[in-house]
């Protein structure tokens, strides 16, 4: 059954692969959050064509499997002259994909700020940009942490699909060990434990940040 003596030999390989998964996660989260924030700002502008851009983008990404988007980025883009490395294709596709979900999270948070505040600020002469940055953003972002943490977990899991386009992260490393050393149980169990551990760590990080940033008893 489970052969513990194999684990020390696998750990350095998996450690390195976990770092690659984390690098991909960090790039994807940075890209996805930025894109999501920008999309939400477009929607908040209230201009009809920009709002339409928001909804069509979100609708498109929520209806499309990430795997297909990844294939378009990695296999499809070279035929229009854009050859991406597996890492760049995965990070780009993940950013584009999760951007829609992050945008929806920011939208939900922005909606928690009472409309009366926005109207009041506009009435006393705040510009729309200042309302966005100084009135809405600080309040909306405080409640966003649990949602952002949950979405980051989904992005972490989607990182596993980068193995399909040969980015040597955790899942691909496990597959390589299986096909080279003909052991099945140990690499797959270790693989699942790696992701599970990373997810639990992300959950804890989210909870800690939420406690750190949420208002304690004060204004709601």
């Amino acid at each position, binding site marked *: 059954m489970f052969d513990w003596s194999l684990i020390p030999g696998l750990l350095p390989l998996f450690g390195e692969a976990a770092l690659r998964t984390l690098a991909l996660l960090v790039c994807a989260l940075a890209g996805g959050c930025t894109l999501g924030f920008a999309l939400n700002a477009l929607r908040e502008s209230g201009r009809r064509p920009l709002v339409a851009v928001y909804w069509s983008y979100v609708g498109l990404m929520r209806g*499309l*499997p990430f795997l297909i988007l990844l294939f378009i980025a990695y296999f499809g883009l070279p035929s229009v002259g854009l050859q991406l490395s597996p890492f760049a294709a995965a990070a780009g596709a993940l950013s584009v994909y999760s951007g829609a979900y992050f945008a929806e999270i920011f939208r939900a948070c922005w909606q928690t700020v009472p409309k009366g505040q926005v109207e009041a600020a506009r009435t006393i002469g705040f510009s729309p940009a200042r309302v966005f940055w100084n009135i809405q953003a600080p309040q909306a972002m405080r409640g966003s942490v649990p949602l952002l943490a949950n979405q980051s977990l989904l992005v972490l899991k989607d990182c596993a699909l980068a193995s399909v386009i040969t980015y040597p992260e955790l*899942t691909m490393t496990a597959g390589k060990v299986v096909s080279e050393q003909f052991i099945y149980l140990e690499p797959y169990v270790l693989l*699942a434990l790696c992701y599970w551990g990373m997810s639990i760590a992300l959950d804890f990080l989210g909870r800690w940040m939420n406690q750190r940033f949420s208002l304690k008893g004060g204004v709601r």
Partner: protein
Amino acid sequence: MNADGLLERLTAYFPVMLQGAGITMLVSSLAIIVGLALGACLLGMSLANRGTGPLTWAVTVYVSFFRGTPLLVQLLMAFYLPSAFGWDMPPLLVAILVMGLNSAAFQCQILRAGLAAIPAGQIAAAYSFGMPQRKVFWNIQLPQLARAVWPAVVSEFMDVVKNSAIISVIAVADLARVTRQIFAANYRPLEVFLSAGVMYLLLTGAVFALGSWVGRRLQHRGGRGRRIGLAATGASHV
């Protein structure tokens, strides 16, 4: 993307992709049903003994595992580990089982949230009227639970359809896999994958449209039921 003969090629892809889409929908529908049934069982287990004891703990670990590991990893484990011990399972069965087990973890949480949304006072009131537990569940909790969780279940169904693209990795001939086979044969990635994308959009769009339609009917029936309920108890306001 080469425009010459594009239309002919697209019409050639269509029947093959439609067949793949059939497998995608078959697996997704069965997975969502397995997931709903198992999710309800999990919630029942988790709420047993007033939410204390080993069963609750086991459900927490189950949900944490399926929520915390990628579907791809779950599929690879379920596909390769049994065959390493000499048990061969058909890929289609593995796909339905794993997607069902995975969805159960999420649907358990959806049902939990739905149940928590029903005011506790209603249940207490029903018991104090002398309603038996079975009637409280079927006539008070279930209709409201169904209405409360329906949008989330439809959204979960859409996610299952999208995530089912991953089963192509374990050799199930779903839409994603036939798409990759077409691509491997003609090496026209952009048009092939874009067609598959449109196909998936149609599938998830259809699930959404059907789900919203049923959801509206659920709301309607719920409204009538509430009125009948009020008349029967003679309450003037709730």
